[in-house]
């Protein structure tokens, strides 16, 4: 019997990283901007997608992949807006992984402009998994409280965009927009921040313009 030390020095999530890289390549070759939406349950991800579906009508073609532990509810809400949607039910898993997206991708039309992936509602685990997105968008809604960025730092450190959502509820809540923004920017100085309400429409023009611009950059390289 011989003892042997094998130095591997390999990412434990290498399989996920490889699957994500393949997805990113495939989508960007087609000029599709993929967006991974992250937040706690109930921060307004699906409502945001419904509002985006309305705003993108006639402007851009979108598709949605929904991740939930159970039910088709979110996909049904998005389909009701005329947007093709696929539901992944994880059956208990707290996050989506790139391989789950890879399985759905062959069914997604190739002539879309945006692919939105709504992750399982959870501000912790999804932050660890690259899904092949170009933009990671984290939502923090006003009822959740302005102290969340430092309590759940990884989601904010790894995101590209922060949406302070449900801004229309500000008059009724002690949420301090500037404090939440400052705390998130302290963790991630590169974060783009938008204050939005899918209900009142506040900030949505700016966010839509930002998305269209990001998609043009991808398309010009495709």
């Amino acid at each position, binding site marked *: 019997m011989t003892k042997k030390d094998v130095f591997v020095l390999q990412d*434990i999530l290498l399989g996920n990283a490889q699957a994500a890289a393949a997805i990113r390549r495939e989508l960007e070759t087609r000029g599709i901007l993929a967006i991974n939406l992250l937040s706690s349950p109930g921060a307004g991800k699906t409502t945001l997608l419904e509002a985006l579906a309305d705003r993108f009508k006639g402007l851009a073609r979108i598709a949605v992949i929904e991740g939930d532990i159970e039910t088709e509810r979110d996909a049904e809400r998005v389909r009701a807006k005329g947007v093709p949607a696929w539901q992944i039910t994880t059956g208990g898993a707290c996050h989506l992984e790139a391989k789950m997206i890879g399985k759905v991708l062959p069914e997604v039309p190739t002539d879309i402009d945006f692919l939105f992936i709504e992750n399982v509602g959870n501000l912790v685990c999804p932050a660890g998994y690259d899904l092949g997105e170009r933009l990671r968008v984290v939502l923090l809604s006003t009822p959740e409280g302005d102290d969340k960025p430092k309590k759940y730092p990884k989601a904010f450190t790894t995101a590209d965009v922060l949406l302070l959502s449900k801004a229309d509820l500000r008059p009724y809540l002690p949420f301090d927009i500037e404090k939440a923004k400052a705390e998130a920017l302290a963790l991630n100085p590169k974060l783009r921040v938008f204050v939005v309400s899918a209900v009142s429409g506040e900030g949505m023009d700016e966010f839509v313009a930002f998305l269209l611009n990001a998609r043009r950059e991808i398309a010009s390289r495709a």
Partner: protein
Amino acid sequence: MHELSLVASMFETLLDQARVHKAKRITGVKIQVGALAGVVPELLESAFDAYKKGTIAEDAVLTTVKPPFTVRCRSCGNESVRDDFVPTCPACGAADPEIVHGLELILEKIEMETDDPPSPA
């Protein structure tokens, strides 16, 4: 709570490497879990202990090292450990950080027993 899925992913590599090196047993596994990896080492150890039963790594001990959140300033080059995960440079105040440690989840080393003759020292 995705520690079990991480362990499952880690076992794919462990079993692959055991085959490559014709291991009889895996006795130890060393991993790096960054301070901002979003993983609780104790939970990872419990998941590892549950997963290893009946495998070639049945008696393996999991050791975890936890690299602190470390950033390098792209402006002045200063490297600093930030326990509060705020990456602004403490030396020059610039907000242009590169994260060098803290997000990693790395399988560093596998200790195994093989039937190979010992290699000459």
